């Protein structure tokens, strides 16, 4: 079966509960608050066929057994926050090493079945010419309600009378030699982009837009991966943005949670022969600065988390597998710090975990701080994955009674 000529039926879009303008039905959220998401809807994205999450809080912990799509939810938020930017899409594929599959294969533009490097983002790893339901992601965000759609489609390039090149959606290419190009159609709210895969492949930053160009409405959204600080090099840029500011103090305070002797932190390198950056710390017990790495996984993990948090002011922070590298005895302190900073800097936090220790530590910190902590459990129901939201008061009952919510 080949793809239909027409872009995917628009009528489904209107049955989408978050309408294109991003306004959720009232019952979906208790209140739409300022600069954060209060609800999410994710369709046909990776393993999530139709996931709705309502009543998100300022700080959210996502739990669920293996393969229930915890990381996919973080990815969906990244895509939303970036208005489905190509760099975010390719970063997501790179993180899961899903970009390597096509590497030796070359771009098979001349074969009947085009290579489809973005296949992994769609449900069921479809082939390009199959019937692929579009990915739809919507976020009920106080300031930036966003509803987006990504679908594969055939494109062709035209030249207007003025000689301007224009990309349009075309009929599926049935035979080699026809001029259709495989591409992606990305619609964010009312703005549509048509992107030939060929250009994506070349890493071209050119994006083909309809005349009403995408307005840049992005807010910071940083992602802390599951690796427990094996590398500090990538954090140089984040460090430079906050070095010598008041925010620097938060970093030291965070590191003290694990080692009270740490008195200062900085990042060195980056110029001359030494191009990579290294985080170093001063400890009251060691006469000269030493690499942060020598303090172990926990310190490095917290450095990455808190540095990313202070860089996410007025935006959101995503932490994958929060507990990695953090002994259960320090997790509550780490969460306290996250809750406090999230409030102070107006950052909405989403973290994933499969550890019951992390849930307990999260609840403890949530109960001590004004910001509400919300737990979102993902679980299977038949072939789909559904969410259950536990508000802070319910979470207290969960830990008091040792109820399993992983």
């Amino acid at each position, binding site marked *: 079966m080949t793809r239909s000529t027409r872009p995917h039926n628009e009528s489904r879009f209107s049955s989408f509960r978050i309408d294109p303008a991003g306004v959720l039905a009232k019952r979906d959220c208790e209140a739409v608050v300022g600069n954060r998401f209060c609800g999410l809807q994710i369709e046909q994205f990776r393993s999530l066929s139709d996931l709705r999450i309502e009543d998100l809080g300022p700080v959210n912990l996502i739990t669920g057994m293996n393969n229930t799509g915890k990381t996919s939810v973080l990815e969906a938020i990244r895509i939303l926050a970036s208005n489905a930017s190509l760099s975010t899409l390719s970063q997501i594929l790179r993180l899961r090493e899903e970009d390597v599959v096509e590497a030796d294969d070359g771009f098979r533009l001349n074969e009947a079945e085009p290579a489809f490097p973005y296949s992994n983002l769609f449900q069921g790893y479809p082939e390009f010419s199959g019937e692929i339901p579009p990915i739809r992601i919507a976020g009920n965000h106080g300031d930036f309600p966003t509803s987006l759609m990504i679908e594969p489609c055939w494109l062709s390039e035209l030249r207007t009378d003025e000689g301007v090149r224009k990309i349009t959606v075309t009929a599926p290419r049935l035979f080699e030699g026809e001029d259709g190009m495989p591409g992606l159609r990305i619609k964010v709210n009312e703005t549509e982009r048509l992107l030939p895969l060929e250009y994506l492949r070349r890493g071209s930053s050119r994006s083909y837009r309809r005349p009403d160009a995408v307005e840049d409405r992005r807010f910071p959204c940083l992602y802390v991966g599951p690796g427990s600080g094996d590398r500090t090099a990538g954090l140089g840029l984040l460090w430079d943005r906050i070095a010598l500011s008041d925010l620097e103090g938060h970093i030291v305070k965070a590191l003290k949670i694990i080692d009270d002797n740490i008195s200062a932190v900085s990042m060195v390198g980056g110029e001359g022969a030494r191009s990579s950056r290294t985080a170093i710390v001063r400890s009251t017990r060691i006469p000269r600065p030493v690499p942060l790495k020598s303090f172990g996984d926990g310190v490095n993990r917290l450095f990455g988390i808190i540095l990313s948090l202070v860089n996410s002011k007025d935006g959101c922070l995503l932490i994958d597998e929060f507990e990695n590298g953090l002994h259960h005895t320090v997790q509550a302190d780490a969460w306290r710090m996250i809750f406090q900073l999230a409030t102070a800097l107006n950052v909405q936090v989403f973290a994933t975990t499969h550890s019951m220790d992390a849930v307990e530590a999260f609840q403890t910190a949530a109960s001590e701080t004004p910001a509400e902590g919300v737990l979102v459990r993902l*679980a299977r129901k038949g072939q789909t994955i559904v969410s259950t939201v*536990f508000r802070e008061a319910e979470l207290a*009952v969960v830990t008091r009674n040792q109820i399993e919510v992983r």
Partner: protein
Amino acid sequence: MMVARKVVLVEGKDDEHVIKHLCGNRGIPPVLKVEGHQSVENLLETIPVRLKATYEGDIVGIVLDADESLIDRWAAVRNHLQRLAYSDVPAHATKTGMIIDPPAESLLPRVGVWLMPNNQLNGMLEDFLALLVPENSHLFARVQRTVDDIPLSEQLFSATARSKVLIHTWLAWQKDPGLPFGTAITARFLDPLHTDADTFVTWLRELFRL
């Protein structure tokens, strides 16, 4: 994939042991997990969260005392269930114990509710146990007379505790005096085969599909 769980939520240890021994004596396989909650207040508070925290295929039974008002206790449980979007929760306690399936699109479990002693009377677990005393027992008649003959000036227990006093006295006067409820069932001082136990056992079997 996780194996679906069959859980009975109860108020305390006594309920837990009674259910386990009843099941054991009535041939119900030992697949039920009975969870005590220290008090009725704690159990009531836990119900919504406990039902939300289930996985696909789980079944949850809830056993509560009706206490002084069957109507009020039922209303409290019903309120919790309705808020969780269970539909068709009956307005009154079901004589044979309530069983309802969850709304199709939700992950909520199939749920059952039993109000002690029998979904029809005010009272508690001990009233249910009194029903299991062998019929026409002269000894039990004597227990009742003795307890009722205590002059008010010497009676330390409140009127609502009368059924507790009766059952504990009954068990105190057995061949093996003072057995706890569960073992007293297995010892047949309380009869697990009594017809009044049938309704409860049938409810458990139907609810958990055993």
